[in-house]
Protein backbone atom coordinates (compact mmCIF):
# COMPACT_ATOMS: atom_id res chain seq x y z
CA UNK A 1 0.00 0.00 0.00
CA UNK A 2 1.29 3.44 -0.92
CA UNK A 3 0.23 6.26 1.42
CA UNK A 4 0.67 9.72 -0.07
CA UNK A 5 1.61 12.25 2.58
CA UNK A 6 1.62 16.02 2.31
CA UNK A 7 -1.53 17.24 0.61
CA UNK A 8 -0.71 20.85 -0.20
CA UNK A 9 2.12 20.41 -2.67
CA UNK A 10 0.29 22.62 -5.19
CA UNK A 11 0.88 25.81 -3.16
CA UNK A 12 2.94 28.33 -5.03
CA UNK A 13 2.63 26.63 -8.41
CA UNK A 14 1.27 28.55 -11.40
CA UNK A 15 -1.72 27.21 -13.33
CA UNK A 16 0.63 26.00 -16.07
CA UNK A 17 2.90 24.23 -13.61
CA UNK A 18 -0.08 22.66 -11.89
CA UNK A 19 -1.56 21.55 -15.22
CA UNK A 20 1.77 19.98 -16.15
CA UNK A 21 2.04 18.21 -12.78
CA UNK A 22 -1.53 16.90 -12.92
CA UNK A 23 -1.03 15.65 -16.48
CA UNK A 24 2.05 13.76 -15.34
CA UNK A 25 0.19 12.25 -12.40
CA UNK A 26 -2.68 11.12 -14.62
CA UNK A 27 -0.24 9.60 -17.13
CA UNK A 28 1.65 7.86 -14.32
CA UNK A 29 -1.58 6.48 -12.90
CA UNK A 30 -2.87 5.42 -16.32
CA UNK A 31 0.30 3.49 -17.10
CA UNK A 32 0.22 1.62 -13.80
CA UNK A 33 -3.44 0.84 -14.35
CA UNK A 34 -2.81 -0.51 -17.86
CA UNK A 35 -0.16 -2.82 -16.45
CA UNK A 36 -2.69 -4.16 -13.93
CA UNK A 37 -0.69 -2.85 -10.99
CA UNK A 38 -3.51 -0.96 -9.25
CA UNK A 39 -5.94 -2.87 -7.04
CA UNK A 40 -7.53 0.25 -5.62
CA UNK A 41 -6.77 3.94 -5.16
CA UNK A 42 -8.60 6.99 -3.86
CA UNK A 43 -7.86 10.53 -2.83
CA UNK A 44 -9.12 11.41 0.68
CA UNK A 45 -11.03 14.58 1.39
CA UNK A 46 -9.41 17.32 3.41
CA UNK A 47 -11.29 16.87 6.66
CA UNK A 48 -11.97 13.97 8.97
CA UNK A 49 -12.38 12.88 12.57
CA UNK A 50 -10.05 11.18 14.99
CA UNK A 51 -11.65 8.73 17.43
CA UNK A 52 -9.95 7.55 20.61
CA UNK A 53 -10.61 6.40 24.17
CA UNK A 54 -12.67 3.56 25.58
CA UNK A 55 -15.90 3.20 23.59
CA UNK A 56 -14.61 5.95 21.33
CA UNK A 57 -15.61 8.68 23.76
CA UNK A 58 -13.25 11.23 22.19
CA UNK A 59 -14.19 12.43 18.72
CA UNK A 60 -12.14 15.38 17.49
CA UNK A 61 -11.63 17.12 14.16
CA UNK A 62 -8.53 16.08 12.33
CA UNK A 63 -6.06 15.33 11.04
CA UNK A 64 -4.74 18.72 9.96
CA UNK A 65 -4.34 17.99 6.31
CA UNK A 66 -2.08 20.94 5.64
CA UNK A 67 0.70 19.16 7.53
CA UNK A 68 3.36 17.20 5.71
CA UNK A 69 2.43 14.05 7.60
CA UNK A 70 -1.27 13.97 6.76
CA UNK A 71 -2.34 11.21 4.40
CA UNK A 72 -3.94 12.69 1.28
CA UNK A 73 -4.63 9.48 -0.59
CA UNK A 74 -3.66 5.87 -1.04
CA UNK A 75 -2.98 3.28 -3.67
CA UNK A 76 -3.14 -0.50 -3.22
CA UNK A 77 -0.38 -1.72 -5.50
CA UNK A 78 0.09 -5.18 -6.96
CA UNK A 79 3.87 -5.39 -6.65
CA UNK A 80 6.36 -8.24 -7.09
CA UNK A 81 8.42 -7.19 -4.09
CA UNK A 82 9.11 -4.32 -1.70
CA UNK A 83 11.80 -3.09 -4.12
CA UNK A 84 9.30 -3.11 -6.97
CA UNK A 85 6.87 -1.08 -4.83
CA UNK A 86 9.64 1.38 -3.91
CA UNK A 87 10.46 1.78 -7.61
CA UNK A 88 6.84 2.66 -8.34
CA UNK A 89 6.80 5.12 -5.44
CA UNK A 90 9.99 6.74 -6.77
CA UNK A 91 8.32 7.32 -10.12
CA UNK A 92 5.48 9.36 -8.56
CA UNK A 93 5.68 12.73 -10.36
CA UNK A 94 4.74 15.00 -7.42
CA UNK A 95 7.65 13.91 -5.21
CA UNK A 96 9.54 16.94 -6.56
CA UNK A 97 6.92 19.22 -5.00
CA UNK A 98 7.48 17.89 -1.51
CA UNK A 99 5.10 15.00 -0.98
CA UNK A 100 6.38 11.75 0.46
CA UNK A 101 5.18 8.23 -0.20
CA UNK A 102 5.04 5.65 2.56
CA UNK A 103 5.38 2.12 1.21
CA UNK A 104 3.81 -0.54 3.44
CA UNK A 105 3.50 -4.24 2.63
CA UNK A 106 -0.03 -5.56 3.08
CA UNK A 107 -0.43 -8.59 5.30
CA UNK A 108 -2.87 -11.48 5.18
CA UNK A 109 -2.99 -11.62 8.94
CA UNK A 110 -2.50 -9.23 11.81
CA UNK A 111 1.18 -8.71 12.78
CA UNK A 112 0.12 -9.19 16.40
CA UNK A 113 0.43 -12.92 15.69
CA UNK A 114 4.11 -12.44 14.87
CA UNK A 115 4.75 -10.77 18.20
CA UNK A 116 2.69 -13.25 20.19
CA UNK A 117 3.23 -16.73 18.76
CA UNK A 118 1.39 -18.21 21.71
CA UNK A 119 -1.91 -16.84 20.43
CA UNK A 120 -4.41 -19.25 18.97
CA UNK A 121 -4.73 -18.47 15.30
CA UNK A 122 -8.20 -19.84 14.74
CA UNK A 123 -9.51 -16.39 13.84
CA UNK A 124 -7.40 -16.31 10.71
CA UNK A 125 -6.68 -19.96 9.92
CA UNK A 126 -7.70 -20.84 6.42
CA UNK A 127 -10.15 -18.03 5.99
CA UNK A 128 -7.52 -15.36 6.58
CA UNK A 129 -6.82 -14.72 2.93
CA UNK A 130 -10.49 -14.22 2.21
CA UNK A 131 -11.10 -12.16 5.31
CA UNK A 132 -8.71 -9.43 4.34
CA UNK A 133 -9.63 -8.56 0.81
CA UNK A 134 -8.63 -5.50 -1.08
CA UNK A 135 -11.14 -2.70 -1.32
CA UNK A 136 -12.46 -2.21 -4.80
CA UNK A 137 -11.18 0.80 -6.67
Amino acid sequence: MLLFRGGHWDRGLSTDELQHAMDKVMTWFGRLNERGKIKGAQPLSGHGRVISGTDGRFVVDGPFTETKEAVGGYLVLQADSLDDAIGVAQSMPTLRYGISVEVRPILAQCPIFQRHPELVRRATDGAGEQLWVAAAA
Partner: protein
Amino acid sequence: MSTSSETTADYLLLFRGNIWDRGLSPAQIQKVVADWMAWFERLKTEGKCLGGHPLEEEGKVVSGKQGRMVADGPFAESKEAIGGYFYLHVADENEAIEIARQCPGLEYGAVVEVRSVADVCSIKQRAMEYSPGQLAGATA
Protein backbone atom coordinates in the same frame (compact mmCIF):
# COMPACT_ATOMS: atom_id res chain seq x y z
CA MET B 1 -20.42 14.00 -11.49
CA SER B 2 -20.19 15.86 -8.22
CA THR B 3 -22.52 18.81 -8.30
CA SER B 4 -23.39 19.32 -4.64
CA SER B 5 -20.56 17.58 -2.84
CA GLU B 6 -17.09 16.33 -3.60
CA THR B 7 -17.49 13.35 -1.34
CA THR B 8 -19.19 10.00 -1.61
CA ALA B 9 -20.54 7.84 1.18
CA ASP B 10 -17.26 5.96 1.29
CA TYR B 11 -14.92 6.34 4.23
CA LEU B 12 -11.55 5.01 5.16
CA LEU B 13 -10.83 4.02 8.76
CA LEU B 14 -7.11 4.29 9.45
CA PHE B 15 -6.05 2.41 12.58
CA ARG B 16 -3.23 4.22 14.32
CA GLY B 17 -0.95 2.94 17.05
CA ASN B 18 0.68 -0.47 16.97
CA ILE B 19 1.68 -0.87 20.60
CA TRP B 20 -1.75 -1.36 22.14
CA ASP B 21 -0.93 -4.97 22.99
CA ARG B 22 1.81 -3.96 25.42
CA GLY B 23 1.16 -5.08 28.97
CA LEU B 24 -1.86 -7.18 28.01
CA SER B 25 -2.00 -10.88 28.82
CA PRO B 26 -2.17 -13.38 25.94
CA ALA B 27 -5.82 -14.01 26.84
CA GLN B 28 -6.62 -10.29 26.63
CA ILE B 29 -4.81 -9.93 23.31
CA GLN B 30 -6.59 -13.01 22.02
CA LYS B 31 -9.91 -11.45 22.92
CA VAL B 32 -9.15 -8.12 21.24
CA VAL B 33 -7.97 -9.85 18.07
CA ALA B 34 -11.00 -12.17 17.99
CA ASP B 35 -13.35 -9.23 18.62
CA TRP B 36 -11.63 -7.25 15.87
CA MET B 37 -12.02 -10.07 13.34
CA ALA B 38 -15.66 -10.60 14.35
CA TRP B 39 -16.28 -6.86 13.98
CA PHE B 40 -14.73 -6.91 10.50
CA GLU B 41 -16.77 -9.95 9.44
CA ARG B 42 -20.01 -8.44 10.73
CA LEU B 43 -19.42 -5.17 8.88
CA LYS B 44 -18.65 -7.10 5.72
CA THR B 45 -21.80 -9.21 6.09
CA GLU B 46 -23.82 -6.03 6.56
CA GLY B 47 -22.28 -4.62 3.39
CA LYS B 48 -20.83 -1.69 5.32
CA CYS B 49 -17.20 -2.70 4.92
CA LEU B 50 -15.91 -3.47 1.43
CA GLY B 51 -12.46 -4.58 2.53
CA GLY B 52 -9.52 -3.99 4.76
CA HIS B 53 -5.95 -4.99 5.47
CA PRO B 54 -3.43 -5.04 8.24
CA LEU B 55 -0.11 -3.51 7.17
CA GLU B 56 3.33 -4.87 7.89
CA GLU B 57 4.86 -2.82 10.65
CA GLU B 58 7.92 -1.72 8.79
CA GLY B 59 8.08 -0.14 5.38
CA LYS B 60 9.88 2.61 3.52
CA VAL B 61 9.30 6.31 3.10
CA VAL B 62 10.19 7.69 -0.32
CA SER B 63 10.73 11.44 -0.81
CA GLY B 64 12.73 14.02 -2.78
CA LYS B 65 13.02 14.60 -6.50
CA GLN B 66 12.84 11.32 -8.41
CA GLY B 67 12.39 9.68 -5.02
CA ARG B 68 16.10 9.86 -4.31
CA MET B 69 15.59 9.48 -0.57
CA VAL B 70 14.43 6.10 0.64
CA ALA B 71 14.31 5.84 4.42
CA ASP B 72 13.19 3.12 6.77
CA GLY B 73 9.89 3.91 8.27
CA PRO B 74 7.54 4.49 9.76
CA PHE B 75 9.06 3.74 13.14
CA ALA B 76 7.80 0.34 14.18
CA GLU B 77 6.62 1.36 17.60
CA SER B 78 4.51 4.44 17.49
CA LYS B 79 1.17 5.86 18.49
CA GLU B 80 0.92 7.52 15.09
CA ALA B 81 1.88 4.70 12.76
CA ILE B 82 -0.93 3.34 10.63
CA GLY B 83 -1.40 -0.37 11.34
CA GLY B 84 -4.25 -1.12 8.99
CA TYR B 85 -7.44 0.14 7.42
CA PHE B 86 -11.08 -0.63 6.67
CA TYR B 87 -12.86 0.67 3.59
CA LEU B 88 -16.44 1.60 4.60
CA HIS B 89 -19.51 2.12 2.45
CA VAL B 90 -22.04 3.83 4.69
CA ALA B 91 -24.84 6.41 4.72
CA ASP B 92 -22.91 9.34 6.10
CA GLU B 93 -20.08 10.48 8.33
CA ASN B 94 -22.06 9.86 11.51
CA GLU B 95 -22.43 6.21 10.65
CA ALA B 96 -18.71 5.98 9.88
CA ILE B 97 -17.92 7.56 13.26
CA GLU B 98 -20.32 5.20 15.04
CA ILE B 99 -18.55 2.24 13.43
CA ALA B 100 -15.14 3.66 14.36
CA ARG B 101 -16.27 3.91 17.98
CA GLN B 102 -16.84 0.14 17.99
CA CYS B 103 -13.15 -0.60 17.37
CA PRO B 104 -12.02 -3.15 19.97
CA GLY B 105 -8.55 -1.59 20.22
CA LEU B 106 -9.77 1.83 21.44
CA GLU B 107 -9.86 0.68 25.04
CA TYR B 108 -6.13 -0.07 24.85
CA GLY B 109 -4.99 3.13 23.18
CA ALA B 110 -5.58 2.54 19.49
CA VAL B 111 -6.77 5.63 17.59
CA VAL B 112 -9.06 5.53 14.57
CA GLU B 113 -8.91 8.21 11.90
CA VAL B 114 -12.10 8.58 9.86
CA ARG B 115 -11.49 10.04 6.39
CA SER B 116 -14.03 10.55 3.68
CA VAL B 117 -13.00 9.18 0.32
CA ALA B 118 -13.12 11.91 -2.32
CA ASP B 119 -14.14 11.33 -5.91
CA VAL B 120 -12.20 14.39 -7.00
CA CYS B 121 -8.66 14.96 -5.83
CA SER B 122 -8.52 18.02 -3.56
CA ILE B 123 -5.68 19.47 -5.64
CA LYS B 124 -7.94 19.38 -8.70
CA GLN B 125 -10.72 20.90 -6.60
CA ARG B 126 -8.51 23.79 -5.53
CA ALA B 127 -7.15 24.21 -9.03
CA MET B 128 -10.71 24.64 -10.30
CA GLU B 129 -11.34 27.27 -7.65
CA TYR B 130 -8.19 29.17 -8.57
CA SER B 131 -8.87 29.19 -12.28
CA PRO B 132 -12.31 27.98 -13.32
CA GLY B 133 -12.27 26.22 -16.64
CA GLN B 134 -8.56 26.62 -17.19
CA LEU B 135 -7.37 23.25 -16.02
CA ALA B 136 -7.97 20.65 -18.68
CA GLY B 137 -9.40 17.46 -17.29
CA ALA B 138 -10.26 19.05 -13.99
CA THR B 139 -13.94 18.30 -14.35
CA ALA B 140 -13.47 14.64 -15.17
